[in-house]
């Protein structure tokens, strides 16, 4: 049994009773990484010397707290001073940040120990982590399958027991989809809940950082530690910090659940449907009620998302030009040539595709037809959610239409890859919070239940997720790695 099979409160109790030490926890992490990461390939960089030093210091300091002394992995698009940060892109292959992201500062205050940086799709563009410039992460449940993406390393490292928890980022499903594929818990908070300062921007109106953990309670603790308004991110929301973990009562009596018919429709596999219906039965047994509803514009989510996210990305990624940091092409004839060669050699295919799609959608003559149109449809999608939340407390459906697919299976087919995010994308477009919790298996691969809440109502989302988790055993299953 691993120390990381215990939830945070148990780990803290063991530390308190001196049954274990903080250096033991860090040791557990590096031992497991040494044993399995050759297969899983979740980590892009490790910071062992510093992590061990911090463990000693924290052990001596006598500091306490629910996260204190616990090792964490951080997605490689979150900047960490002193640990190379690449966003899994060749264009940042040699980039050493000179400041920490706000979430990293908050983690330090909470006493977590960053053991390393986690693989992802380049600039978070992808659903399988196959778009990393450096390595392909594999699903701990079956190494022939993808871990999902873009936070594939974040989900795989937690599922593989290399770290008890990690941070990911979610623009169209990039926390929830890999959490679902790897059988762990992943939360995308409300847009604005967590500061994006130091998150390498992909689509600024959609990106959110969030926690990936083995269980709901730990997830709530980790989110509590990273939320809050930040003077360095003007889109971070000035809402009161909340105690999510203390509110996990297990009580869902009288809860009104909406189940969108579009989330159990065409393209969703039979086993996925059955697992969601079984989950609804569990919640009914706990005193909740559910009804079928409609989010009529769901089917337009993917198209809307690809136009908006790519447009924002084409602007955000303009900064990677080979001048101030990162990769610079050699033998450029002039400045424009330097930009073009640097970017051609530095970016992978999917990133180029999206930069070009975005540039096209924003270009003169096409802006109204594509970009503005997509912004208008976004309004309709957002309103779908508002309408449902007038009469219901949460929306429940699957996280993904199918379990994890095989490595290489759909990488050459962008539209099929994009369709994977059909159930997660609308949540980002509406800006509401959503969590994925384990709800079954299909062919040995995990399935995820998605629970979506109102703006800034993570509290209810967590309460429902926790009640469901406590009534089931799926989260206790571990890969045979």
């Amino acid at each position: 049994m691993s120390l990381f099979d215990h939830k945070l409160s148990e780990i803290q109790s063991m530390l308190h009773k001196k049954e274990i030490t903080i250096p033991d926890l860090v040791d557990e992490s590096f031992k497991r990484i040494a044993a399995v990461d050759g297969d899983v390939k979740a980590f892009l960089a490790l910071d062992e010397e510093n992590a061990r030093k911090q463990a000693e210091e924290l052990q001596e300091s006598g500091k306490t707290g629910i996260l204190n002394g616990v090792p964490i992995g951080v997605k490689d698009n979150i900047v960490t001073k002193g640990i190379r940060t690449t966003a899994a892109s060749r264009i940042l292959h040699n980039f050493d940040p000179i400041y920490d992201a706000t979430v990293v500062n908050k983690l330090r205050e909470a006493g977590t120990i960053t053991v390393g940086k986690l693989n992802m799709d380049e600039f978070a563009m992808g659903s399988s982590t196959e778009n990393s410039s450096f390595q392909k992460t594999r699903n701990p449940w079956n190494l022939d399958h993808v871990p999902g993406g873009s936070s594939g390393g974040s989900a795989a490292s937690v599922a593989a027991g290399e770290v008890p928890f990690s941070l990911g980022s979610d623009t169209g499903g990039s926390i929830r989809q890999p959490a679902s594929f790897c059988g762990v818990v992943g939360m995308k908070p409300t847009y604005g809940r967590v500061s994006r300062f130091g998150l390498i921007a992909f689509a600024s109106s959609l990106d959110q950082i969030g926690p990936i953990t083995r269980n709901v309670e730990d997830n709530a603790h980790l989110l509590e530690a990273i939320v809050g308004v930040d003077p360095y991110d003007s889109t971070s929301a000035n809402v009161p910090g909340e105690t999510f973990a203390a509110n996990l009562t297990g009580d869902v009596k009288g809860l009104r659940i909406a189940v969108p018919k579009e989330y159990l429709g065409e393209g969703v596999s039979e086993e996925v449907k059955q697992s969601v219906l079984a989950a609804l039965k569990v919640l009914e047994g706990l005193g909740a009620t559910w009804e079928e509803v409609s989010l009529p514009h769901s089917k337009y989510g993917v198209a809307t998302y690809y136009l908006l996210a790519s447009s924002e990305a084409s602007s955000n990624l303009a900064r990677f030009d080979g001048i101030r940091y990162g990769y610079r092409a050699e033998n450029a004839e002039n400045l424009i040539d330097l930009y073009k060669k640097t970017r051609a050699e530095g970016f992978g295919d999917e990133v180029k595709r999206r930069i070009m799609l975005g540039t096209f959608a924003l270009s003169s003559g096409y802006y109204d037809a594509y970009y503005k149109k997509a912004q208008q449809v976004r309004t309709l999608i957002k309103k779908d959610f508002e309408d449902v939340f007038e009469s219901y407390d949460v929306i429940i459906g699957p996280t993904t239409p199918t379990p994890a697919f095989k490595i290489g299976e759909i990488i050459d087919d962008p539209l099929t890859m994009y369709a994977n995010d059909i159930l997660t994308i609308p949540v980002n477009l509406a800006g509401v919070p959503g969590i994925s919790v384990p709800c079954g298996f299909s062919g040995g691969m995990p399935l995820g239940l998605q629970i979506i809440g109102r703006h800034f109502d993570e509290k209810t989302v967590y309460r429902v997720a926790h009640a469901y988790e406590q009534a089931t055993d799926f989260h206790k299953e571990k890969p045979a790695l």
Partner: protein
Amino acid sequence: MTRISEEQVRHVAHLARLAVTDEEVHKFTEQLDAIITFAEQLNELDTSNVKPTSHVLDMKNVLREDKSAPGLDREEVLKNAPDHQDGQIRVPSIIE
């Protein structure tokens, strides 16, 4: 009907400051055409009276006090620069 031509792809690549080979132009034209064709399903919706959403939160001007604070350290910044000289980042000649 194709939505996008190879010529347009070359133009977009130039706007995006991406060098592309003929082979890439061919591939991206096909793929972007498929994606744009897919995106045109949005035209099924009448959005003539719908306001665009650029941002989901109801916040407008976010202001702060205009106070000076130290910026990034020059030496630190230059550590990541591909080429520098005399405390400045060096680039290829801009003026012909």
